[in-house]
């Protein structure tokens, strides 16, 4: 697709130095805290010191007396403000979220009051004087607590925040697993991560008059923030401008404004002066949305050769009290298999509320799929007695296997996980390593090799409200220089450079003459910005086509002005050339001056000026493939892990700038190393976060992250330009690669049966010494002994009593989108039943079968998607219970009473 003009300068694919680096490296970036406005006041939050309870009193009297304090707000002060705190999809949160605690506190760090003062220091002085009385309750902290514990949110039946899938394994799948030659089950407990961007959250908000607002915020998309604020405050008429020129890391935490940032905006509106809040590191670690805490158990059946025959995954994640949208992370299951031949897969997935800080998106939110799959594959290879390379080659998807459709209905046509894996192995001498490994073991040195492969869904567009296309508006200014206004946003993504590379090459101008404007909702158009590994793909495609449109216009004008055929015109180095007549070359500036200043000279149908605009809507997903290898040495005396070598073999299609691609991979891998070896945000039993500073929260540093080696493959995607996203991959593939290397190194000692992260030196010695050095086993035994008895399942035996099914029933179906109320009308006739559901969605009729008091029927629905619901209901007395299977999305519990 990347057709070159003869002699044109290549920028796409060049390791071009970044335009923004001079500014950033000399301390001249503009971050949220660099914004200082006349009359600006500062906020500090008073936060809950306890994890759970009812607020009985808030006394701010002493705090108000502090000189320099202007106002102290609690949730009551916002009671008159119509404010809707939404999730990423602009939808409601299941458990309603208020900006400040509304009568109850649900986690340590829950914001209870906000102080507005002349300085942050004064605001903190006053916040410390606010007396919050709380009638404390026993908190629910861990996933185990949440499963049996009292509901975090009053009025809810349990702590399930979201549920999809079906815990009962389908009969057909069970038969496949029962018939498998080898069945392997593995469990992983992944610790809680504090997102820890280099720049913490921060926001400066000012009302310009009663309707307009300007907001500087550390975010991932100024456009998304503007849209969110407009919807959250129901201000469709208000002009909201959001600016974020430079941002020091987002990772998902800054996808959209959350409680504190919304509170700052609300306070600025209420108080009427510019207000700033910059999160300090203590708040960032303990009160910014956390990530990852999750458990998964995966079972895979293999045939005698090591080919997968079926699998079942059970996933849970700790959503905390107020997640940034309840989430059972169904993407873990959706994206577990596109890279592999997996004929049958079932799952159940649940998000659980707890009295901990809420969960937010974090680079590769579904990354657990690769961690559990790739670590299990290694274990399976050992059990089956084949090489980890062989088990992958037997099961990975190659180009020749495509098109292929996963059990989730995801069709892949052009992914290259198998090819990336082979290319990786072509660049790493495995037999030589195995020899070195064997020799080293003789000397008491334990080396290990980890391999992993995956695909990363990138550039999602068109299926979720915020995940749109991208817009590029490109202009040749009267000076002949090129400016572009884009919907992109950079938190270090280098879009000001990569987009300029695309434009310079496609237009035929010098890279230095292209300027990118972004980072301001008044520039470009809507997009979610740096979210979901999308900008190179979608904005790159938008810039590509808009530039081509602009080049066509230049050629049309030049052809007219200079009496030439447009086909013979080329643009190179900012000069317009006519084939065969070098003396007729003209600069873009000359043409631009005419286009702007003397439009009468332009061809008839050409408007004045030189600009073009294109919004690119790509395919719903574009997959990037990769395979990684990592070599570690484990010190069996201390349990320390030293990473010796790490190779990435990735295929992200057309590479605009290898430096930027490698930077993305390296950053993700650094996070992966942190997750596997260092980072941990534990809570104590009372719900106190235990890593409140960087002394205890261990980020990977330069000495923990090796120099990575990169092998690029370039299979163009089907998007304009052929790019594929690469933003999250390192964080997804990194953990299994490293864990597999450590597990390989530990083979002389034993298996990691239950993987608990991070793999601290203590946990590694558990394996080396085959005893409970870490104390984890003792802790697990204690937890199991104390666990509340499992709720007796409401298993209703096939009732022998006479139950009349006929008539009307008030029924509720618990769907992932929330409970759905309906009235069921049933009429039985021998072994058959007919009836209909009546709800605000209208009537839906059905026919089915009756067996005793058990009724089964299918119902085809069109909304929200075409799907057949398979109902299986048991009637007993005046009650009915059962479930409706929703195809690949699992089943919805359905229950009711006689109307």
């Amino acid at each position, binding site marked *: 697709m990347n057709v070159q003009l003869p002699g044109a300068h290549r920028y796409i694919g060049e390791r071009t130095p970044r335009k923004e680096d001079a500014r950033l490296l000399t301390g001249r970036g503009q971050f949220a805290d660099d914004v200082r406005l006349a009359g600006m006041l500062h906020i500090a939050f008073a936060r809950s010191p306890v994890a759970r309870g009812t607020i009985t009193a808030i006394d701010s009297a002493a705090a108000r007396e502090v000189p320099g304090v202007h106002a102290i707000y609690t949730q009551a002060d916002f009671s008159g403000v119509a404010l809707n705190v939404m999730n990423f999809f602009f939808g409601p949160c299941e458990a309603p979220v208020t900006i400040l605690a509304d009568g109850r506190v649900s986690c340590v760090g829950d914001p209870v009051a906000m102080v507005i003062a002349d300085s942050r*220091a004064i605001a903190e002085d006053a916040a410390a004087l606010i007396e919050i009385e709380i009638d404390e309750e026993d908190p629910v902290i861990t996933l185990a607590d949440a499963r049996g514990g009292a509901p975090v949110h009053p009025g809810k039946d349990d702590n399930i925040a979201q549920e999809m899938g079906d815990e009962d394994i389908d009969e057909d799948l069970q038969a496949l697993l029962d018939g498998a030659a080898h069945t392997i089950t593995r469990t992983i407990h992944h610790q809680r991560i504090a997102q820890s961007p280099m720049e913490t959250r921060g926001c400066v908000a000012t009302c310009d008059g009663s309707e307009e607002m300007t907001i500087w915020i550390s975010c991932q998309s100024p456009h998304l923030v503007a849209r969110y604020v407009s919807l959250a405050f129901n201000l469709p008429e208000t002009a909201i401008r959001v600016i974020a020129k430079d941002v020091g890391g987002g990772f998902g935490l800054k996808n959209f404004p959350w409680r504190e940032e919304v509170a700052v905006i609300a306070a600025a509106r209420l108080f009427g002066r510019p207000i700033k809040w910059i999160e300090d590191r203590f708040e960032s670690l303990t009160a910014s949305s956390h990530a990852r805490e999750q458990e998964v158990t995966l079972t895979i059946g293999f045939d005698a050769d090591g080919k997968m025959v079926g699998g079942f995954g059970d996933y849970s994640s700790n959503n905390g009290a107020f997640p940034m949208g309840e989430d059972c992370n169904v993407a873990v299951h959706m994206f577990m298999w596109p890279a592999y031949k997996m004929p049958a897969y079932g799952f159940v997935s649940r998000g659980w509320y707890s009295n901990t800080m809420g969960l937010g998106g974090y680079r590769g939110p579904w990354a657990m799929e690769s961690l559990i799959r790739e670590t299990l594959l290694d274990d399976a290879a050992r059990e089956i007695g084949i090489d980890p390379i062989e088990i992958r080659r037997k099961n990975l998807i190659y180009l020749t296997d495509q098109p292929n459709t996963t059990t989730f209905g995801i069709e892949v046509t052009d992914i290259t996980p198998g090819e990336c894996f082979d290319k990786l192995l072509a660049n790493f001498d495995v037999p030589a390593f195995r020899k070195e490994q064997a020799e080293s073991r003789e000397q008491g040195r334990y080396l290990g090799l980890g391999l992993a492969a995956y695909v990363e869904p990138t550039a999602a567009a068109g299926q979720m409200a915020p995940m749109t296309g991208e817009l590029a508006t490109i202009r040749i200014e009267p000076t002949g220089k090129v400016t572009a206004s884009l919907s992109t946003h950079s938190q270090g993504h280098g879009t000001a450079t990569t987009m300029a590379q695309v434009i310079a090459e496609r237009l035929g101008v010098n890279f230095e003459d292209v300027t990118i404007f972004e980072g301001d909702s008044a520039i470009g158009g809507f997009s979610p910005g740096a979210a979901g590994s999308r900008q190179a793909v979608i904005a790159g495609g938008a810039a590509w086509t808009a530039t081509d449109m602009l080049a066509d216009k230049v050629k049309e004008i030049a052809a007219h002005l200079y009496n030439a055929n447009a086909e013979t015109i080329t643009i190179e180095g900012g000069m317009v050339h006519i084939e065969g007549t070098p003396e007729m070359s003209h600069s873009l500036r000359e043409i631009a001056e005419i286009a702007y200043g003397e439009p009468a000279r332009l061809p008839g149908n050409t408007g004045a000026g030189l600009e073009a605009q294109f919004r690119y809507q790509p395919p719903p997903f574009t997959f990037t493939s990769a395979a990684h290898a990592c070599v570690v040495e484990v010190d069996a005396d201390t*349990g320390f892990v030293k990473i010796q070598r790490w190779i990435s073999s990735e295929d992200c299609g057309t590479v605009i700038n290898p430096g930027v691609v490698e930077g993305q991979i390296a950053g993700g891998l650094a996070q992966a190393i942190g997750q596997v070896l260092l980072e941990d945000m534990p809570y104590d039993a009372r719900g106190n976060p235990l890593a409140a500073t960087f002394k205890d929260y261990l980020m990977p540093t330069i000495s923990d992250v090796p120099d990575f080696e990169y092998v690029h493959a370039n299979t163009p995607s089907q998007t304009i330009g052929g790019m594929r996203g690469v933003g999250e991959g390192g964080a997804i593939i990194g953990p299994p690669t490293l864990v597999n290397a450590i597990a390989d190194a530990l083979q002389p000692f034993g298996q990691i049966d239950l993987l608990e992260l991070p793999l*601290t030196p203590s946990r590694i010695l558990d394996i080396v010494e085959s005893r409970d050095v870490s104390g984890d086993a003792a802790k697990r035994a204690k937890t199991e002994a104390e666990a509340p008895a499992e709720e007796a399942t409401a298993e209703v035996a096939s009732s022998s009593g006479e139950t009349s099914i006929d008539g009307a029933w008030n029924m509720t179906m618990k769907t992932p989108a929330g409970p759905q109320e309906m009235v069921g009308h049933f009429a039985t006739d021998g072994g058959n039943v007919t009836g209909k559901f009546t709800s605000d969605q209208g009537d839906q009729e059905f026919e089915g079968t009756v067996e005793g008091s058990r009724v089964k029927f299918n119902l085809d629905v069109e909304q929200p998607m075409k799907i057949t619901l398979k109902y299986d209901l048991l009637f007993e007395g005046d009650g009915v219970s059962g479930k409706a299977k929703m195809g690949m999305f699992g089943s919805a519990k359905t229950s009711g009473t006689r109307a």
Partner: protein
Amino acid sequence: MKPAPFDYVAPTSIDEALSALADAGGGATILAGGQTLMPLLNLRMSQPFIIIDINRIAELKGVTRASGGTRVGPVTRQADALADATLAQHVPVMVEALSHVGHYQTRNRGTVGGSVSLGEPAAEMPATAVALGATIEIRSSKGTRQVPADEFYLGPYMTVLEPDELVTGIIYPDWADGHVTLFREVAQRPGDFALVGMVGALELSGGTVSRSGIAWLGMGPTPIKARQAEAALLGKSLDAIDPLAIAELAVADTAPFDDHHASSEYRRTVGRRIFTRTLREALGLKEAA
């Protein structure tokens, strides 16, 4: 900066500093290198009424030879101490331990006295002072006292320093030329406080151990002096030393804790191991068959 309000004085002499301390009546905090204090102020984990900045007191800086020892002024920057020829000659293990304190950048500002007097139990400087039998010189407006390092530490971040007292010197006693130095720690990242570590010195005369000083870091609420191990080594000839048995004795004196970085069992297990290995390597002992 967003600390709680405080007053600030920057005396230029010890006497001025001491009178400021006395006047503060317990509400003062000493600012030396600030590598711990400044973040604590910002996080409001420390809220002094007055900060007494001792960076301008020349008499608190520098390394000098004292009778029978080497005296380090508390405001001596860690980077300067690392480059100091006197320390390298007379207190080599202190210099080795110092290279593990913080990071290259923080050592330009951080001071030896700050590290000694903060009392972090997993830090290198307190354990080194305890191991070598250093004396902490402490002054207040009432007078001067000399406290042996192993009596200086009471608990995590707790020392015998009274609110009106200032550390004015750390005196490391001389160990015989050519004495054996012991140092090893394991820390998750370079610059971190150790999960477990040990530091010490041995004098040999006529092939037997004539003097021993060893302490643990990260193995209890304070630096822990390995008294049983020290005693067991005394008078032993090299070929009679069983490093593992000595390490077992050393571990017996500890009281390590569990945290999310390492379990107490890990600290004991690895402590025993690094102690054995360090002793064996330092004394050139062969590994038991």
